[in-house]
């Protein structure tokens, strides 16, 4: 098992071989032929593979992801309403399939996105500092997070605003109040597809 494989962002060819359960030579061949994207360490000839390239490579070669991840999906819940955050934490923890972190503002959401590298973002629309659609757009602009799923869960009822959120790059919009089972199922479903 690769240490800190769940959160590591740069892998060596040896680590990649371990995760993918192939020989290191195969990894090097794939790297050199360009099928596995990466870079060489400046001043040496050591090959390094970023996490996103590795995920792309594993997906395209249908390699099981088990050795890259713990098996639990990382969920970041962003809402300024403490009661809502608390409820989601409890709900997702209780389910057991998810590892949950929470943020109460757009700024916190940004920091945690970088550190925690969530698989899925449950995002409220009205945040105290920046609105959900801005957070959504910022994440979508960064190719490092292209595998991240974003679900906006909001009380907004204005159809124009809903349309705007979808346009900002959200994968899903769920209106408050909601059916908890429906939300959990939808999150799990989206994880599988991803």
């Amino acid at each position: 098992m690769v240490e800190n494989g769940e959160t590591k962002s740069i892998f060596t060819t040896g680590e990649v071989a371990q995760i993918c359960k192939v020989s290191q030579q195969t990894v090097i061949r794939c790297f050199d032929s360009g099928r596995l994207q990466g870079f060489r360490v400046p001043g040496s000839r050591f090959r390094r593979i970023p996490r996103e390239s590795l995920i792309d490579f594993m997906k395209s070669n249908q390699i099981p992801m088990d050795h890259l991840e713990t098996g639990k999906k990382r969920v970041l819940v962003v809402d300024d309403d403490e009661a809502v955050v608390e409820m989601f934490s409890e709900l997702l923890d209780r389910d057991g399939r998810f590892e949950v972190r929470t943020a109460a503002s757009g700024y916190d959401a940004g920091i945690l996105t970088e550190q925690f590298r969530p698989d899925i973002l449950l995002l409220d629309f009205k945040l105290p500092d920046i609105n959900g659609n801005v957070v959504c757009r910022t994440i979508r602009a960064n190719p490092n997070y292209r595998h991240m799923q974003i679900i906006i869960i909001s009380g907004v009822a204005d159809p124009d605003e809903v349309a705007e959120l979808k346009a900002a790059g959200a994968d899903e919009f769920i209106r408050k109040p909601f059916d908890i089972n429906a939300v959990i199922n939808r999150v799990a479903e989206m994880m599988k597809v991803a």
Partner: protein
Amino acid sequence: MAVGVPRSASSRAGVRERGELILGQLDQLPTPPTIAARLSAIAGSDESSAHELVRTVETTPSLSDCVLRMMSSRSVHRGEAVCEPRSSPFILHPLPQGMTVARAVSLLGVQAVRNAALLALFFDTLSDDAEAGSAGGNRRGLWRHSLAVGCAAELIAESPHVGKIDVGGELFLCGLLHDIGKIALDVCLPKSYARVLRCSERQPSCVCDAEREILGLDHTTAGRRLASRWRLGQPIVDSVWLHHQAPDALPSTLGNARQVRIVHLADALIRRAGIGASGSMHEIDIKSSASALGLDQDALAELIERVPERMNPIQKALGLDVSEGDASYLQSVSQVNRRLGRLNSRLLESNRTLQLRSDCFNALSAFTARLSDHDRIADVCAAAADFVCSLLPIDRALAFVRMPKSSCLHVGTRDRASTDYRLPIVDCRLNDELTEWFESKTGCGIIPASEECDALWQRCFGSSPESFLWLLPIHTEAASGGVLFSSDESAVGPLRAAHAECASISSAIGQAVTSAAARIAAEELTDEFLNLNRRLHAAQKQLARERSISMIAQMAAGAAHELNNPLAVISGRAQMGLTKCEDPRLRRDLEIIVEQVRRAAGMVTELMAFAKPEQPRPIAQKLEKVLESACQHWQSVSDLRPDAIFLSVNDADASVYCDGDQLREILQAVFSNALTATDPDARQIQINSPSRATDETVRIVVEDNGVGMTPEVLEHALDPFFSSRPAGRGRGLGLSRAYRLAEINGGRLWLESNHQRGTKVTIELPARAPAH
């Protein structure tokens, strides 16, 4: 002359003073030589008188010359006159050989020679500056008149009807000198006297009036003064002084009344005959004067015929003649005739003018009377056409007017053969150039019409003008146009020549058009104002509605966020509880919580949906199908009696173009309203559509037999949150939302209701997609 002439009669005293001054000037005139008195004394015609005459005349060479001239002119044959009209009567031509005064006396008689000699003397005395100034011509005429009166007086005296007069020989002098005052005044004041004559010519009054008016004294006064000073004897003095008095007005004590009467008659006769120029133009009653002397018309006619014969040699000798004897008389007659003719034609002319004016005035009155307060421009045009028709011998006329900034012509016609008075507005381009042309022609009166006018005539009457087409242009600030009529030139001539009348007709029509246009403009303005007011009212209502809707939207948006968070937590927690809870009673409570949260959230959503409905996605659908499925749905969900709903669609092909969901929502709202308003046992809801497939819009009418609405309720029935039901029951968004959905789908919805009788809701929606 040093003496000025007063311009006005206002200063009577000044005029009198002037008269005194003039008398003083008369006194300074040269006196005739003493032989004049001697010659006057020769009264008889016997041998001694002849001898005396010859002797007296021969002592003065100039006088004898003159007498011999007379002799010579009589001795030559007619047509061989040796005397040419001369600038001065006393520049004599060479005399014929072998003439003597004695021979002249024996040939012409004592009287004639004596008279000629006297005449020559007086003539000489009063002929200073004879040709000078403007009065020169007048004075010749005066002398000829005087001479003719002298001759006529003499002839009257000789007439067998008059009877013997003692002083018969003197009558020539009486007549000759009767107007000596005029001649004297003319000599003294030639310019002023010319004015007197001009003034007298204008007014048919006695010249004496004009003389007194202008000079301050008349010629009878002046003549009397002169005659007295020259010692011409009482008969002459009286004749000079009184010849203007009517014969029966003479004082009975007057010794020489007979002479005066004869001179008066002679003067009148000569004036009527037009020989010479007396200056007086007024008529004298010849008949009574003549009969007082025993003369009848025939005698007068004979007498007047003999005058030229007697006066010709004398006037020739004096150089006063202008033509031969009879010819001169004929000329006088024709001169008078010509003057009469001219006068007559002037009278006819002014008569015609007056008649035309009166016609114009009558037609104008009729035109004005025809106009009324509710005339359109075309009515005024028709009246104008009628106006011109009544003035001229024509059957048809057409009036047209173009208002500024308009391409339309207002046309009115008059056709005596038809009862149709006017035509509607004709869309005929009277372009700006043509308008300018009209403008330039205004005031020109009647002019030949242009080609465009010809075309207009054809359009209006359907045939070409019968004759030449004329135009009377009308131009005012409000409009340009004209009256067209067809007529030959002779018929239109008199009116055409009457510029003033044409101008007043044109301006009368122009004013009528202007005032009609102003009235119509005011009416249109009022209409426009009312229309604007109505639209403003509607816009205000719509604005108020939109404001309230936008407030609802704001409120709903805020509420959605603020309410939905706690609702989400309540609902979520309850659901989480449900998953852990086994106790059925607790589970039931939790379920109720979840359900009620859903309801509360639904309200917020509904509010939002009302304020900001989703954009419709219209599709074309068969109306019948939509209504049928809606009815089936209601039957199934509302547990209705089978006959409670009655559906009828007029045209199975009719389609409706709108958002399907929203249409269902509209129908649902209207149907719910009908359901709540009706008693379940007597419920009758009729749904029908009268529309045809070809209509642009379709109508769905939902009628119930429920409680209906009072006017107050009806007024607010479409306001959001209004509900006639007790507070707290229903949110009152149903009909209001239906109205809004109909609106965003390009349709309308309205209500009619009778309290206690039922309500009728009409939904109108587009039948098909807009053309663009």
